[in-house]
């Protein structure tokens, strides 16, 4: 590590002191071969793969928090939900994922991930991850594609592996823009969260692995519980906006992810449904999924329908809805709590605080607010099978990469590995970019630090939290949030579009009282741009492909004849317009697209 730090990192520092009354920001310029933006699930595995393939390669991770506990895995995880058990194949997995996504996925991407998954799971087990075993010593199944693990320490394990492999980690730097040079990506800029510096990291190749976006829509809970949400509230869409502002092509932002969760505490339900065999029931005690979604497989229906179903029950007056856990024995309840402690401990505290015993009362469920992400759904960069984006020198992996849902943890790991492999292979043709452009650096610094300057010079304006709340209200009411049962039509979307444009004009009034608010200001700017892209995607798809995730009241049917294709977008930074394109669907795996098995 010492060798890498002293040997390879060329530092230069200049100070822009213009009119910064209280503090000036300085520029920290660094050099590397491969820059990985985001040291999470995909990023850590990308770092390990790159260093193993090319041991002399300078690999640098730019991490917004601290790599040991950052991102989605900070509390841990109790299952690997994409694994090819004996008897299954990458093809059978892809067939299932296609069924789960209602017939429209990038099958080439799903297949290529599936081919890596088992290898990557075994690698992480080798680094110390405890995986539960059955009596024969095989991985303990928790469903067709699932493996039970003791994953409380999962994030520190993969972070340590990245460090052990020799990757340099720069913690507490939040990426703000890509560095562009001669039409290619030449690294990235970032805000030093602790030191308020502008980081300019020049790289021959860059992998974006930041995760997706929460906080676009008004959350289920508000006030003191507004971050009681399922997806990490610190995944704020930065990875998407890096690409959008640089003109990268994005796909499927209209396939929003709405998770079926334990109401109020927003804990994952897979632990209950898959791990403990709890079916959905409505207020009348009816197993409505089995009754109304029998053709799709009842409680085994595609994921969007398992959210759409209970939401319709509530809407039509048969709520609340529950996962029926009343068959559990006291020992099973104890095992259930233990499983949650490895991943989502607050539900155990919630049950203890409210005197809830899941063996005596069924667990009430609800849908979450919509999230934009490519790990469960498929919102993200439009990539080739090597995870190359449409911008030369930029690769994408994990939740920020589009087209391949049902990744979860192991698929993100696999995707990190694939992206790193492509980057390493392409490096000989990617020369070291010229020195970063001074004017570009200064302009980025001015852009990032504007809310701080406003505080110092004007002293009043819009707090980032205020703008976030306003954005979430608009999206909730006009673009299919919780309060409208996730439904939308063209006219409401038009209102959302109008409000978002107006909100864009308010960005110049953002004000940051302290360095933490300066980070929050970047986050809300990112969320606003993601929201604008989401609305354009929702406007364009004139069918209902994924009920719940994307319900168009004005086009209620699925329409394969006209809409079996991907909705993509490119943002034009000059005009501020989101331009929509369509890309064809291609079938790579045989079989009926609406069946889980051949």
């Amino acid at each position, binding site marked *: 590590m010492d060798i890498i730090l002293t040997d390879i990192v060329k530092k230069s520092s200049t100070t822009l002191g213009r009119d910064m009354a209280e503090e000036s920001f300085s520029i920290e310029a660094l050099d590397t071969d491969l820059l990985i933006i985001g040291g999470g699930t995909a990023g850590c595995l990308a770092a390990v793969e790159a260093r193993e393939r090319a041991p002399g390669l300078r690999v640098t991770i730019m991490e917004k*928090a601290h790599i040991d506990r950052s991102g989605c895995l900070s*509390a841990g995880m109790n299952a690997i939900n994409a694994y090819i058990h004996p008897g299954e194949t990458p093809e059978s997995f892809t067939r299932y994922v296609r069924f789960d996504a209602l017939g429209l996925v990038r099958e080439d991407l799903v297949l290529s991930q599936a081919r890596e998954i088992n290898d990557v799971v075994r690698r992480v087990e080798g680094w110390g991850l*405890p995986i539960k075993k059955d009596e024969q010593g095989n991985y303990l199944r928790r469903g067709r594609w699932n493996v039970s693990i003791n994953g409380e320490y999962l994030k520190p394990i993969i972070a340590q592996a990245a460090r052990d492999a020799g990757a340099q980690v720069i913690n507490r730097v939040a990426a703000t823009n890509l560095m562009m040079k001669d039409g290619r990506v030449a690294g990235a800029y970032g805000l030093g969260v602790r030191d308020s510096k502008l980081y300019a990291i020049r790289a021959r190749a860059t992998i974006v692995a930041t995760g997706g976006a929460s906080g676009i829509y008004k959350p289920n809970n508000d006030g003191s519980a507004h971050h009681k949400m399922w997806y990490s*509230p610190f995944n704020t869409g930065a990875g998407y906006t890096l690409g959008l502002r640089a003109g990268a092509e994005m796909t499927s932002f209209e396939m929003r992810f709405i998770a079926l969760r334990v109401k109020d505490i927003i804990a994952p339900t897979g632990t209950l449904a898959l791990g403990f065999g709890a079916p959905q029931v409505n207020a009348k005690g009816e197993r409505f999924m089995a009754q109304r979604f029998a053709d799709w497989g009842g409680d085994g229906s595609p994921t969007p329908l398992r959210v759409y179903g209970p939401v319709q029950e509530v809407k039509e007056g048969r709520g609340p809805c529950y996962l029926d856990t009343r068959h559990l024995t006291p020992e099973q309840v104890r095992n259930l*709590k233990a499983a949650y402690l*490895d991943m989502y*401990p607050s539900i*155990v505290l919630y049950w203890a605080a409210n*005197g809830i015993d899941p063996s005596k009362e069924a667990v009430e469920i609800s849908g979450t607010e919509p999230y934009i992400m490519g790990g469960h759904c498929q919102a993200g960069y439009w990539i080739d099978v090597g995870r190359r984006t449409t911008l030369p020198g930029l690769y994408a992996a994990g939740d920020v990469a589009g087209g391949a849902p049902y990744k979860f943890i192991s698929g993100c790991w696999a995707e990190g590995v694939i992206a790193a492999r492509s980057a390493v292979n392409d490096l000989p043709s990617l020369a070291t970019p010229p020195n970063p452009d001074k004017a570009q650096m200064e302009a980025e610094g001015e852009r990032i630090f504007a809310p701080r300057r406003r505080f110092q010079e004007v002293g009043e304006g819009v707090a980032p939290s205020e703008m976030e709340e306003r954005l979430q209200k608009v999206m909730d009411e006009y673009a299919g949030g919780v309060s409208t049962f996730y439904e939308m039509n063209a006219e409401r979307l038009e209102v959302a579009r109008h409000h978002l444009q107006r909100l864009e004009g308010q960005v110049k009034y953002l004000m940051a009282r302290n360095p*933490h608010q300066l980070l929050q200001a970047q986050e809300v700017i990112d969320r606003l741009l993601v929201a604008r892209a989401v609305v354009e995607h929702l406007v364009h798809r004139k069918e209902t492909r994924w009920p719940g995730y994307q319900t168009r009241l004005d086009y209620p049917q699925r329409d394969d004849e006209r809409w079996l294709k991907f909705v993509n977008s490119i943002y034009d930074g000059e005009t501020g317009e989101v331009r929509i394109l369509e890309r064809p669907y291609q079938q790579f795996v045989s079989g009926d697209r609406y069946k889980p098995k051949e």
Partner: protein
Amino acid sequence: MTVLIDKKKCNSCKGLPEPRCVQNCPGDLLSLGSEDGKAFIWDARDCWDCMTCVKLCPRRAITTKLPYVLADYKATLVPIAGKTSIRWTLTDKEGQVEQFESVTLQPKKKEARP
């Protein structure tokens, strides 16, 4: 309010460049007070309840408290993280105690890479 920091117990991890909680909070929510030198949370509403800081605090100065809008007063959940396992003590609002222990890390294996 989602984490409570006992200022009497916090010694700001003396000797470390940064206290463990400040260093590791995934949301950049914790910092050191400029006046008392103790850890504080920028905005209690923004906590995600991941319990990273609670697990890492060597003085057990941090506790998780669910927002009252969701949960009754009085129950507690206290983790004690060891090197290869974690122990949890759950106390419900009636004072009933339950304990759990879970393995977190197993010895590294020589990788069988293709």
